[in-house]
């Protein structure tokens, strides 16, 4: 009788450990699903989101039902020329393999670019960047994930303006 109860107690420890391991593995996989993609422009959002001259927006899923987007991220930074250079660097890293929809170069620098990135997990991905110097220096960077084609996304955006 005693032997049986010892066996039962011994069995409970590994069983609990296995359950914990399964739970952690599942947690890890979910976290990975929700993790930001491997794009370099994510550095811009994380680096400048708490900047005093910046306004950073992150919206996802049901909030964006009107637009049919699954993710919308934007950042607007004012009076920071070095930030613009940093954004340009990060975009240049993500540009490989992407389709350029629009590009404006002024004084040898990219002041505006729309990039159609290769789709990931069934989502079309779009990067929009614009820098203006007058009337005040400011840049905007937008990242959008959507099931819609990038052409449709642009039409929606420009219509909503």
């Amino acid at each position, binding site marked *: 009788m005693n032997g049986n109860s010892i066996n*039962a107690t011994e*069995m409970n420890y590994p*069983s609990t450990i296995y*359950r914990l391991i*399964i*739970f952690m593995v*599942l*947690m890890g996989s*979910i976290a990975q*699903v*929700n993790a930001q993609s491997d794009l370099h422009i994510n550095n811009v959002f994380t680096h400048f*989101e*708490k*900047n*005093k*001259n*910046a*306004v*950073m*927006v*992150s*919206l*996802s*899923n*049901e*909030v964006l039902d009107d637009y049919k987007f699954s*993710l*919308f991220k*934007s*950042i*607007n930074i004012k009076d920071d020329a070095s930030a613009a250079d940093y954004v340009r660097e990060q975009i240049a890293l993500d540009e490989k393999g992407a389709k350029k929809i*629009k590009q*404006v170069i002024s004084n040898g620098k990219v002041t*505006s670019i729309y990039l159609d990135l290769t789709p990931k997990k069934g989502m079309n991905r779009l990067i*929009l960047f*614009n820098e*203006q110097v007058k009337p005040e220096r*400011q840049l*905007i960077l*937008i990242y959008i994930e959507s099931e819609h084609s990038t052409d449709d996304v642009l039409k929606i*955006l*420009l219509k*909503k*303006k």
Partner: protein
Amino acid sequence: MKLKQQNRIENVTSEDIDRLLGKYYEGLTTLEEESLLHTWLSQMGIPSRFDADKALFGYFSGQKNTSVKKVNIVRIASWFSAVAASLALLFVIGNSFNSNNSNYVFIQGKKYTNLTLAKEKALTTLSLLHEPQDEVRKSTSLLNEGDKLIQEQLNLLDGANL
């Protein structure tokens, strides 16, 4: 080991079994002796006076198997419930992560989770986007300004010739 026990069983007499059963009912048997009893009683063709003992041992053996099956079912059920609970929890966590943690706005370093404010700021940023036509219009207007300058300079030249 089995062979050894078989040899032992062959040498065991009914009297030995009687004596071992007596010890068993008094709770004095060793595990080896209980095993010997179990094996001996599970044999075919043993005297009918051992039927009651045989039934008793058979009953215990059956109960043991049922309890093992029960333990297995309980273990499988607990595994399933653990996995189901984990999935449900992850679904809830995932959903709340998506709907709450992914919807926010940082303004001058301060985080707000007010959706109306976040949407408003998103629309403000979108309004700053330049349409491709705007860029073409700008470039064309610059060209027109260039034309004007050339015309002015030509006019000046004409004036000088006069």
